[in-house]
């Protein structure tokens, strides 16, 4: 829309109020950009000096006052992988069902309502639930398995929603074309609909991994270990995780002076993971958009 800023004939007063309002908007928006840069800059500035090859590849030592964060990095990656195994297949199938199979009406409305509600459930409630169901009732104990299941359920609504939205944008004419050529419904979905929706689905999946990587509350009571220097050997082991490690070290440390650099370093690694994931998702989105055009 190309509208001249001030249509002819407006009084100076009206013009002034518009100028003031727009300046306020600009300033507030600029402030938020500054807040983001302050947070990122602060953590990068303080954490960059801590990062070294040893910090990334060694286990914590001396009561977590020195050494590295390797087990926490591995733990977080394992939990991301585990939650992906739990959430991706079910979430994608659920999204396909919602868009391709469910007859319009109360079923879809009900499922969508429940999915929206699930996405609003606070992460600490997932933690409580995971502890009650997976840790206690099913007897998995504090384990990567219990943590992955809890985190998987947490990211499920996001996966379902992105799948559904990706498929919704595919024109019906394409489905009808496939069906008209004699393909069955399943063949149409598998060979035509899914490949076309894949780019956007994958972008959504990557973003859901980003969310999982930073969650602390759901793994507090289902998986996270205060100190577990060796790498986990089975899904029934506990593991360390970056967000929990940062929480523990910055709040209940035994030696604040010595542990603060480790906290900065851990925060930086977490931020870098989130940045990489966001950049990757943004890059994929751009790339696929270009290709589709």
């Amino acid at each position, binding site marked *: 829309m190309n*509208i001249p800023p001030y*249509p002819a*004939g*407006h009084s100076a007063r*009206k013009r002034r109020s*518009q100028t003031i309002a*727009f300046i306020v*908007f*600009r300033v507030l*928006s600029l402030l*938020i*950009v500054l*807040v983001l840069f302050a*947070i990122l800059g*602060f*953590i990068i500035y303080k954490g960059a000096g801590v990062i070294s090859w040893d910090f990334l590849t060694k286990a914590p030592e001396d009561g977590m006052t020195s050494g590295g964060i390797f087990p926490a990095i591995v733990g977080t990656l394992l939990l991301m992988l585990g939650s992906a195994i739990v959430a991706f297949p*079910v979430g994608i*199938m*659920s999204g396909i*069902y*919602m868009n*391709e199979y*469910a007859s319009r009406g109360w079923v879809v409305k*009900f*499922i969508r*309502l*429940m*999915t*929206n*509600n*699930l996405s*609003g459930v*606070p992460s*600490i*409630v997932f*933690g*409580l*639930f995971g502890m*009650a169901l997976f840790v206690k009732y099913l007897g998995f104990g504090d384990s990567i398995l219990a943590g992955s299941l809890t985190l998987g*359920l947490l990211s*499920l609504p996001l996966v379902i929603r992105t799948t559904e939205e990706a498929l919704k944008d595919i024109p019906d004419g394409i489905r009808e074309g496939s069906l008209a050529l004699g393909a*069955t*419904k*399943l063949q149409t979905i598998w060979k035509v609909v899914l490949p076309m929706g894949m780019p956007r689905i994958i972008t959504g999946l990557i973003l859901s991994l*980003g969310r999982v*990587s*930073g*969650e*602390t*509350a759901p793994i*507090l*009571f289902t998986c996270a270990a205060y100190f577990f220097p060796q790498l986990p050997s089975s899904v029934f082991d506990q593991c360390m995780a970056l967000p929990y490690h*940062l*929480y523990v070290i*910055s*709040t209940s440390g035994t030696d604040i002076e010595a542990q603060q650099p480790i*906290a900065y370093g851990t*925060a930086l690694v*977490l931020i870098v993971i989130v940045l990489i*994931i966001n950049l990757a998702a943004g890059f994929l989105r751009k790339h696929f958009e270009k290709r589709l055009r």
Partner: protein
Amino acid sequence: MKRILEKAVKWLLTASGFVTSVVILLIIGFLFTEGAGLFREPVVEEGYVLVLNKENPVSAMTAAEIKAVFDEDVVNWKDLGGPDMAIETFRLEDVDEYFSAEELGPQYENAGGAIAGLVESRPGMVAFVPGSMIPEDAGVKLAEDRNISPGEVFGGREWFPTATPAPLFGILPLLAGTVWVSLFAIIFALPFGISIAVYMSEVASEKVRGFLKPVIELLNGIPSVVYGFFGLIVIVPMLQQVFGLPVGESGLAGSIVLAIMALPTIVTVAEDAMRNCPRTLREASLALGATKWQTIYKVVIPSSMSGIASGVVLGIGRAVGETMAVLMVTGNAAVIPSSILEPLRTIPATIAAELGEAPAGGAHYQSLFLLGVILFFITFLINMCVEYISARNRAKNS
């Protein structure tokens, strides 16, 4: 063969369609069973009894009264509806002060009888001992055993889940803390959120918008524990200096951090709503000679009000449920706050801080699940509000 495969896949997809519903049901089921168990727990710690002198007309006390007695805040029976008589408290740890080792026996096998005798001889005494110790024929009476009542929990003003003999599970301080922090967070976030949304959708050029959008997404992506860490290291000391507080960990610190965290939700949803405002409305307003700013606040904002409201309500939901950041910066004092500058404690922070220490199956453990139930229903209601607002909006637009 092909047809069977089609059928099987269809059933599989249908089944996964209902997974979220099943999870919601399971959450409600598990949280409820554990949480409701609290009301089957006795007021006095399980396995223990309060032993009273037979002459004492007081035979039942609430958890709050028991705590006051054993903290020596109440020192006379007349405050509890009894005679004018000083209260003497006796805990098992005090046993060596009253009796010699010979009197108690080498394995403390005579302790029960000795304590019963002591209470019998002192009319103002109340003893807190394991129920199995007191012989059945002793000349004392046991305080009536009641279960924890919903009134004590939902109307209670004190949260002391580890107090002995009687823990207090009044949730009002936690509820108040949650409401205060979320309220202030939204008050802080609202002007920013709406301004940025208007700026992005109406004022900014495509280029500026293309820069702001990822900024907002990144703010949304930063893990809450990193916000908490930043708050702890930067915001808390800053507040301490600016307001001259004894401790910087306060409700205000929590609100500021939460405001930043709720902002992306508000901006995204509100901006979406404003961009969906029909172009014809805008053009009509401009054609009538309104300035761009008049068009924004007289046409665009009113017509996208329901979307903005959804964003704000979702932001509140995010603030209410946020755990880690709040846990790290609010100071975690379970008292009803009188000012936002004081430390306070929210429901999610309480669960996160205490569940690790609460023995599984005990009253404390169950009370934390009850808090989970309350939290679940608060956010459930919030989501229903959002659904209602957007459903009404859809109906209006079609």
